[in-house]
């Protein structure tokens, strides 16, 4: 029901997209501690408010994009490609 403005395709229905977790996570190097790896794997920000999320435009350009949106009001603040 929501409209996500894909940076490549323009405004499209949310059913065209697939959620891919929090944006901005850095994959730790191979020599990281068990705790750091667990944090990367399992900790979610679960933000109440403005969150940065990764979404794949699966039924469109198949590009991963970052969507900045408010998780309580569902307002979409900005979208940008994951890879420039």
């Amino acid at each position: 029901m929501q409209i996500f403005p894909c940076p490549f395709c323009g405004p499209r229905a949310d059913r065209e997209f697939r959620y891919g977790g929090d944006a901005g996570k850095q994959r730790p190097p191979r020599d990281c501690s068990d705790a750091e790896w667990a944090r990367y794997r399992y900790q979610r920000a679960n933000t109440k408010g403005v969150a940065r999320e990764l979404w794949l435009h699966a039924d469109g350009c198949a590009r991963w994009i970052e969507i900045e949106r408010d998780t309580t009001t569902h307002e979409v603040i900005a979208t940008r490609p994951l890879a420039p």
Partner: protein
Amino acid sequence: MSGPQRIGDSNGNGIGRDIDRSRRLNFSFDGREMTGFAGDTIASALLANGVRLVGRSFKYHRPRGVFSAGGEEPNAIVDLRHALRHDPNARATIEPLLDAMTIHSTHAHGSAQRDTFSFLDRFASFIPAGFYYKTFMWPRFRLYEDMIRALAGIGRIDASSRAAQTQQQFLNVELCVIGGGPAGLTAALAGARSGKSVLLVDDQVQPGGSLRWRDARLDGLPGIEWAATRGTELSAAGVRIMSQTTAVGLYDHNAVVLVEKGLPPAQSANGERLWQVRARNIVLASGAIERPLLFENNDRPGVMLCDAVLRYLRSYSVRCGERVAVATSNDSAYEVAHELIAAGARCVIVDSRAHSDHALPARDAGIEVHQGDSIDSAIGRGQVEGARLASGTTVEADLIAVSGGWTPLIHLYCHARGKPRWDDAIAALVPGDSVAGLEVVGAANGGRSRPSMASAALGLLPGARTLDEAVEQGACAGGAAPSNPRAQSAVEPQPSDLSLLQSTDYWGGPPNLTAAGGKRRIWVDLQHDVTTKDIELAVRENFASVEHLKRYTTLGMATDQGKTSNVNGLAILAAQTGRGIDAVGVTTFRPPFVPVSMATIAGKALGELQAPVRRLVAENVHREEGAYFREYGDLLRPAWYGRTADAVTDECRIARSAAAVFDASSLGKIEVIGPQAAALLDFVFYTRMSTLAPGRLRYGLALAESGAIWDDGVVLRLAPDHFVVSCSSGHVAAMVAHLEEWRQDRFDLTKVFIHDASAHWATMAVSGPQSRGVIAALDLGIALDDVQLPHMAACAGTFVGRTARVARVSFTGERCYEISVPARLAADLWRKARAAGAEPIGVETLGVLRAEKGYIFVGQDTDSETMPHDIGMGASRDKRKDGYVGDRSLFTPFAKREGRKQLVGIAASGNQPIPVGAHPVTVTNGKRRSIGYVTSSCFSPALNRPIALGLVEDGRRRLGEKLDFEHLGMRYTGTIVGSCFLDIAGARLHA
């Protein structure tokens, strides 16, 4: 006293505006043949035929009659059949009467007239709210539950009903106006005139809203004419008007869902269609509905809303009673009394207020007015016979028309996360904060300021403050400049001669609770049979929050969602808990606003269209061959060929002794191309692919970040910069997404590309000791000696002049050639392979052949924890120092712990296969514990005994151990063995 009946228009009042007396329609109700007119609703036709009893109440099976004239109806829920349509929960008050309709009352055992369950009313004190939490407990509630459920519920589903089969439609507009009353019509016109694309949605047969039955003058015209003129202007301005259409929900980003009704059977079996509309702006002009008064036995047939009584008279020429008691807390009811007098009824007004400006004109018209009085109880059992007033007077009546105030319909505002607030001045819940993109206008917006007094005149509408201001609000919302809302009106603006009264006088004060309390039975929620005593009970038991009250008493939870009962319920709760109504709060309104049939939502997505299968290009050839098909995921594939009981066993024997052909076209073929292709595959796969030589294939695993095996497949390297990844048939889309995700995150997008070519190629696998002969006969132009084309190598050939790719890779354990050709040549290739002597084998046969070899199905022989070292493929973990998906997870304590489940083979002791899911069990200190489970199991034709694969704790250390297996109460025994049962050295691959 006569009760409801149709009357003529002898006084020339212009009543019966919606009916066409020249078109008579036939219908039946509870088996009785009746007639009505075109334009009638089912309810107006029933009333015209003198029907007072339309159903029985939900819990107590009390007799009930028509209560309202709109979608808020709680009582007149009927079973409706017409043409292909069956609706067990139709609201008689909104359904247009059609010729040959068959109507039945619902929820009566027998008929509404003679309901065998009406005795339940005498046991009312044993079945108050929440009785099922306290009674029917011994020995177990379950014994009584079925009987209670059978007694509850409204209507019966007919399993043979046809589904709607109507496709959803979509629409984008700049302005969506919900509600076609005065405010909505004005908003729509203003929007159109300012150049917007406009959709006007109205749930009535014709737009105009309350203008169609209440007195009003706008721009010098009677309301109903003004509405008709506006309608014409709207059509001329290109506004799309959808009548008989209800906006049922508002969703994110101004999405509105509509249910359109009244479609002909050819377009929709149930007459309905779902619409999804996206609007840049929405104007909500949904109006307000009347609410009832509280007094003893206020649920009797013959108690109706005042506005409904007026509407039945003016729209359908039905007078609902001959001797009427009009009970009210506000001025809007006076118009109703005057119209009843004009229709030949005798009328008494019972006004709870000490004073009203309308009382004198009413007395002058011959209406007895009891000022400062209210109804204490309704007299009569099967129908109303009179009313006892608080003052002690008794009034004879066959109709009690009640008006306890007005409730703005703000549901869609609440769907959009608007927060309503209680307005004391008009005793109503009104929109609070504004919501972006949504404007609430007209009566739905309630009153905000007090208008000036003006001379008394009849004909007030339930308007914002006044009709003028409703129209002004509508115009502003639609896009006209606020200062001159009617500048573009085609009709010369004239001062309207509506009386402007203080809004409280029109809207009514807070609900009058003087009658409530004690032992009297006073109904609040008619549809769910919730009385004031139930609310008091809830408060006594400390279910005193509005959320608890709703769920404990079920007030407002019926199909009418409390439209005529919520506010009264809140007022009682507030009084009982010593709070103001605004402190009590309100529960959340959620879509849908009215009940929506599941068939309408499903539309065409039924049967095969609900879960469409994907098909092999060569499907018809397989059918010709007598294939027995099964769905594997969403793919329809041959399970085996022929109908003999031994089909799979026979196919296995042929595959291992001669040559067999298998349609492997559904396997993924994902091309990874570019200078960074090898690096991408090295990161995504656990098995290193960059060291693969061109022209060679390698089996590999792809892990999830958890380290668990996510998929397996064979990678073919065509050239240094060109790979083809095959993966599980049902997993192709996911593998493409997975590759894309890491490509976009870590690699130069100009240096590696993914191309899913799965659908472009058909692949036939020819395997068996005699497979080389079949390939030779296909004449593909390739060298077939094992030096030039060894196992796990590929080469290019031609097939009927097109490129063919031939790869030696095997899932059967036999010598095998996979031939890939352009997809549309699939049938040709199959037929030629058959002609060359290969026998067909299906998916089930392949399942047995690969199980004999211990080849896994990811997701069947592995679970969400299985890591490569659990299946004996730990080498890459030990060797690779570069990064790949899941790498770190292979070195966690969890990954390194003792007792991990490992893939093993299981040799069953008996001659029956051990079922999949059976648990190997060990006993420690007398306690039995599962140490894994069987993942694959079948009879092996090659070994002539049952074999199985499974995941067992410390499986490799248990080789040779005999274990007990348990499954659904049955016991088996089996021995842990290596996972490969046949040809461990792999000699048959080169045979």
